């Protein structure tokens, strides 16, 4: 029920941002979507706290709980940007993603998967949370990058219309993209190192063959490439924005492909 409340608030926030984009940004109405989105994040958090209390475990095992947690972590990142004024408008892209993730979770039913995992406890919780937060950071970076490219195009084409007025400044979007990518990379790296440390310690192996390990290494390499796009000369900011978008698209696509290939044989997340 509370998941539906959160979902409704997310949809409302998205529609309000859309209205601000289409109808122009004016007066106090321009500041309404942010608090609505924040209320949705709070409701979402309450829902997952209740989940933990009810099932005696964090919502990290199984596809539906993991997607719901990922949606929440992206929401937390979005709420953090609300303090930066116009930067919060990145919600116009992040919100549909959050709605999609939370919507799939709600349809599947947010309940623990009947998985019996060796890998559990604090190691596991930290590993998955850091991994999801890393993907969340990349989502923020991708959304900021997409808006950067759009605003860049508006400026180049000298169309100072509603899209131009709605979108945050290029410098703000670049800074958000950089923060998202750096935070995403840091958390993903820590999460992967934690997973490997556990495997080495308790299984005495690198477990290099299972799909999650391959996927983790793949997305780590993708995120590293996104960061690498910021190094060197030329059109650094635009290149970084493009890399953020492509990087996140690759992560999402690879997840869908691996999920399709692994079927029910996947591990705790897949």
């Amino acid at each position, binding site marked *: 029920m509370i998941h539906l409340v959160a979902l409704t608030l997310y949809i409302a926030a998205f529609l309000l941002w859309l209205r601000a984009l289409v109808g122009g940004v004016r007066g106090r109405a321009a500041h309404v979507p942010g608090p609505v989105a924040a209320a949705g994040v709070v409701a979402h958090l309450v829902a997952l706290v209740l989940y933990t209390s009810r099932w005696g475990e964090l919502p990290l095992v199984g596809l539906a709980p993991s997607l719901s947690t990922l949606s929440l972590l992206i929401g937390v990142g979005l709420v953090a940007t609300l303090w930066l004024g116009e930067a919060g408008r990145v919600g116009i892209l992040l919100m549909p993603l959050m709605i999609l993730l939370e919507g799939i979770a709600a349809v599947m039913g947010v309940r623990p998967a009947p998985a019996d995992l060796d890998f559990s406890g604090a190691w596991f919780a930290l590993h998955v949370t850091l991994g999801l937060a890393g993907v969340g950071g990349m989502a923020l970076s991708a959304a900021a990058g997409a808006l950067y490219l759009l605003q860049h195009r508006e400026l180049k084409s000298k169309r100072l219309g509603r899209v131009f007025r709605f979108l945050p400044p*290029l410098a703000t979007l670049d800074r958000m993209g950089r923060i998202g990518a750096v935070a995403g990379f840091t958390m993903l790296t820590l999460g992967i190192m934690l997973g490997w440390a556990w495997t080495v310690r308790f299984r005495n192996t690198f477990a290099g063959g299972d799909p999650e390990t391959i996927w983790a290494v793949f997305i780590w390499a993708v995120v590293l490439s996104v960061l690498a796009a910021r190094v060197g000369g030329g059109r650094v900011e635009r290149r970084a924005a493009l890399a953020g978008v492509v990087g996140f698209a690759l992560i999402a696509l690879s997840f869908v492909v691996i999920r399709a290939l692994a079927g029910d044989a996947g591990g705790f997340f897949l």
Partner: protein
Amino acid sequence: MPLAVVGVSHQTAPVEVRERFAFAQEEEAPVLERVRALAGVDEAVLLSTCNRTEFYLYPILDPETLQTVERVLADKASPLPRPASAYLYSHRDEEAVRHLFRVSSGLDSLVMGEAEIQGQVRDAYHRAALTPAEPPLAGPVLNRLFQTALSVGGRVRAETPLGEGAASVASVAVELSRKIFGSLADRRVLVLGAGSTAELVVEALGREGAHDLTVVNRTYERAADLASRLNGRALRLQELSGALREVDIVLTSTAAPHPVLRTPTFREAFPSGPSRPLLVIDIAIPRDVEPALGDEPNVFLYNIDDLRKIVDETLERRREAVATAETIITGTTRDFLAWYASLEVIPVIRAMRERAERLRAAELERVLARLDLDETGREALDDFSRRMLNKLLHLPTVRLREGAAGGRAAELVDALRYLYGLDDVSTAEPAREKAPEPGETGDVGGDAAPGGLPGRGRRSG
């Protein structure tokens, strides 16, 4: 309603005349007191900006009053090329209300929809309201009028595109800069040439925080002159490519007959193109910047035609919003006049309630004397009688105010006097309500603080 505005604006006088009518801030309080004394009005506010000087006065009971105020203005502006009356205008009653609402909404501004006027109206009102004077310069009526004006100005800007976009070359430059760089606080500006339009743009950028300025000109002395005026540094034209590497915004306005910023200079500064965004604003005719540079990555090049096109589009959008803005103003003017009309019945409402309260208290005392009640019982009976009285009087009070707002004040007041025997009550009783502080609603017509019609003591009942 006996409200009037007398003044001069860009609609009636050129700048060299307007500036003669303008009052400095320190002159405002003395001239308002003088006008109040000479014209015999209770309330007065002066709005003096570079585009208008206007006195708002209440109440105007004698047509001669306006001529007195016009003489004060004429004395201030003298000597003038033509009689002062050729420049002055006045509006009365509903038109005066509507005029202030249009002014605060930016509909009467030189650049339609500009936002600065809203702050100027607020400041004028606050200065009058905070001036120590007895009675207050901004009393109950002007207090309500100006607060409503500020509110309607905000509403028009929130509900229509009237305040959107940039409507001058300088403001387009600022808007572009902000949308590229966000805060301009640590941004560096290079001015190529020493034209006066460039100076305006630099000042506008400076107001947004861009203070690091470099001026480059073919004649070094002119560059140094402009740089000293704008707190920047001057460089010679030969140093252009080096300066380009350091800056975020380039503003060009030379009188050169050919492009000054060409590809070779640009390449010298950025062999592989700029790695960060570079905004180039070329306001020179003929153009100072080679058009091909606009195709360079990270270069956002705008020439004077681009800027004018943006300004024209903004003004067109604003013109399209005028009808909606006027509808909002008409509705708010009607509401304000209704509020004002409702004030006329306040003394009668007060008398009616006082009479009823006296009766209630007397009857309660009689009943309590006959009953042997403890304190709780006495309080319960007192509470019951109060509630009963309030419920009985609520609907007549509301209907009276509504009727008065609908123009039936005199008829209803007569009926009430007859029905309740209130012959000694007059709507003419002078009452000087304490003027609310700026920001308070100033609803003098509220039941909680009923009083006579503010400042209308000279009207017959």
